[in-house]
């Protein structure tokens, strides 16, 4: 008997995305450019994070029409975002047949207390995290893939670096701990002990961990890969730049050849203007998307 929606199958799609670039797109044309450039998946949105940030107000799940058009346009997996805690938006995306759901801080949270019970769905979920405790809480809720939060829509990689380095450091700290210390660490980081123990044994997260939030150049992508990311999300960085096709291909190449500075130098040439960047300090603390969720 064939079984669908199992943990192996949910986690397995994320394994297949590894070493790849997932690109934000808002139209079928952009989705085709992304696929042609070598994206391993696309994120279907009404607006990229930089525009969401500029527009203000409440950001919600995209119109199903937009998502369905993008699903029709490409053969690669299509992801879409729901608001934190908005399980009905997730039910809608599952009914549409979306391949992965991002319960995302880029949209305005719908629940200030609880994230979605992701085990209740057949479709797999990816969630953002700033530290190990947050990543493990999301995995406990059923996330089959994790990404750093970074600071979306800024074209500034500093927050993604901070989050990736912190998660790495916390994992290294667990490695040397005895059982009684793991119990205290689990309490301290607010994460289930079985997952904390698993991380200590594996020396990594039990699911795929991508980098996201502020990646705008091939060098940014390679930086995150060298810091241990399994793959890359690029939000506003491609279609807010001067030459999206060229930049998209360059970021795809940089994600594969992240350890090869000669290739990185070659693909970084003549890309035109990157997206305009934003200094994190210029964003009022209450306006930082990474602070959404817990």
């Amino acid at each position, binding site marked *: 008997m*064939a079984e*669908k929606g199992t943990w192996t199958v949910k986690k397995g*799609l994320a*394994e297949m995305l590894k*070493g790849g670039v997932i690109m934000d797109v808002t139209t079928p044309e952009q989705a085709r450019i992304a696929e042609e450039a070598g994206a391993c998946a696309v994120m279907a949105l009404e607006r990229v994070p930089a525009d969401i940030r500029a527009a203000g107000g409440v950001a919600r799940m995209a119109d199903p029409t937009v998502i369905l058009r993008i699903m029709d346009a490409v053969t690669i997996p299509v992801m879409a975002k729901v608001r934190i805690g908005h399980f009905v938006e997730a039910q809608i995306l599952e009914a549409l047949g979306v391949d992965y759901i991002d319960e995302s801080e880029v949209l305005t949270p719908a629940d200030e207390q609880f994230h979605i019970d992701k085990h209740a769905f057949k479709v797999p979920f990816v969630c953002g995290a700033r530290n190990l405790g947050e990543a493990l809480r999301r995995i406990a809720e059923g996330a089959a893939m994790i990404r750093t939060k970074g600071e979306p829509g800024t074209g500034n990689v500093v927050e993604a670096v901070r989050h990736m380095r912190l998660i790495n450091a916390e994992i290294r700290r667990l490695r040397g701990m005895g059982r009684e210390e793991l119990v205290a660490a689990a309490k301290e980081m607010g994460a289930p002990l079985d997952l904390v123990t698993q991380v200590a044994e594996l020396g990594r997260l039990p699911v795929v961990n991508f980098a996201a939030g502020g990646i705008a150049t091939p060098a940014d992508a390679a930086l995150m890969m060298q810091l241990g990311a399994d793959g890359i999300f690029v939000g506003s960085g491609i279609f807010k730049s001067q030459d999206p096709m060229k930049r998209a*291909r360059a970021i795809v190449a940089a994600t594969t*050849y992240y350890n090869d500075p000669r*290739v990185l130098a070659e693909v970084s040439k003549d890309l035109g203007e990157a997206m305009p960047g934003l200094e994190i300090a210029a964003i009022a603390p209450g306006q930082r998307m990474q602070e959404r969720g817990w």
Partner: protein
Amino acid sequence: MGVLALQGAFVEQERALRRCGVDTRQIRKAEELTGIRALLIPGGESTTIGRLMEDFALTAALTRAIAGGLPVFGTCAGVILLAREIVGSDQLRLGFLDIAVERNAYGRQVDSFEVDLDIPALGPPPFRAVFIRAPKIVAVGPGVEVLAVHEDKPVLVRQGHVWGCAFHPELTSDLRLHRYFLDSIANRQLI
């Protein structure tokens, strides 16, 4: 043994091969093909892997190596890249397996599944096969040996030294299929 490491689950394939006692090498450039005795093309996105194969001059090198007799096993995206025909698509392929595949024909991710598969060559017990947005092998040419079938469609095939499957043997701990492939190479090289 080489594992094509452009994108996808190449680390999992390496882990499975190492557990079979085989040395592995990640292949990202044409010159890295020199000296390998077999090649594994892992699961991932076939359009992504194809784009990088083209951009980094691997298509011609891989074609030469496989035409020259290099044993190769493609899983999921790998079998798409080895197929002669990809239904309704002009995306890049190497074309060594005389089969037609239809991408995502088992459905989208919500329809991805795992199932107990009988592989007669491996004997009992059944093999737990994980299908993720899997390609469907819809036609096979006369020179292609079908080694396993799911719902009347071939899911594991072999044409001489070129092997392909629609599922992911690297996602379970069962190494029998990797070992079977490796044994067949070893036997052939003895002859």
